């Protein structure tokens, strides 16, 4: 009887301990949750300040943001996300086939960051700085924070790409980097809507 009980006790934890998702993926999801709340706080603060602006928004004398050019850049970022979805699918079938779509995703992501940098240089020349107005302060804070995340996520993708070339990339690593990049892609349209439009 005792042996029977021990047998059941030994068997049950093994069945319950089956891993549902890789640790790296769960860790990245928890990190992304924290980042989502961070961006939600920034967007909320921006919304409140914008709604309380008595002199209009953007304030008089401040340059207008390049809405059309950034819409094009947004499309490039979304295309980058789609290329990464394709890379994931290819990786599960044949890892070598994922090289091209992963490179495209990284290239489009790098284009987005470079385009944003050029936009910043142009706006700084026009007089929109971190201290010129609350409009400038929020613009550089929110868009700059997103750019920092984009660079970090790109580095994650680059790490995966190097491992893929060396043929020692495993799916959980790619998935963790993917989740980070999807977050960067998904949060941007919301920021564009709130900050640019």
């Amino acid at each position, binding site marked *: 009887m005792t042996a029977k009980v021990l047998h059941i006790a030994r068997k049950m934890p093994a069945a319950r301990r089956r891993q549902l998702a890789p640790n790296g993926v769960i860790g990245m999801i928890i990190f992304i949750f924290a980042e989502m709340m961070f961006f*939600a706080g920034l*967007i*909320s603060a921006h919304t409140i300040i914008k709604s309380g602006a008595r002199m209009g928004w953007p304030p008089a004398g401040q340059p207008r943001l390049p809405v059309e050019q950034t819409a094009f850049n947004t499309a490039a970022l979304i295309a980058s996300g789609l290329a990464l979805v394709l890379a994931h699918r290819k990786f599960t079938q044949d890892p070598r086939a994922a090289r091209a779509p992963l490179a495209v995703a990284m290239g489009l992501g790098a284009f987005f960051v470079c385009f944003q940098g050029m936009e910043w240089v142009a706006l700084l020349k026009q007089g929109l700085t971190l201290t010129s107005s609350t409009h400038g302060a929020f613009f550089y804070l929110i868009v700059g924070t997103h750019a920092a995340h984009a660079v970090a996520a790109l580095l994650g993708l680059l790490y995966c790409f190097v491992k893929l070339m060396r043929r020692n990339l495993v799916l959980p690593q790619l998935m963790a980097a993917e989740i980070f990049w999807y977050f960067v892609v998904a949060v941007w349209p919301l920021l564009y809507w709130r900050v640019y439009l």
Partner: protein
Amino acid sequence: MRALASSRALASSLALAALTLPAQALACPVCSAGRDDAARQAFFDTTIFLSLLPLAMFGAIVYWLMRRARAVESHTQAPELLPTTEE
């Protein structure tokens, strides 16, 4: 004892008055809540947004884990019974 009871009654009355007049109680010295409709609406919207976002996130992760658990269960065969020493 009587003084304590009257001060409690006064405190309760003041708290009740503050609750019934929220628009007049601009407790936050730096925010502009209650100044105009747009600001009031923005505070309302962002409060809803910040309150529901974590709930939505936790709901999504729980739903995803439940789906994963179901998928793992359906793809895994029932484990073989371990050999027992006694029947």
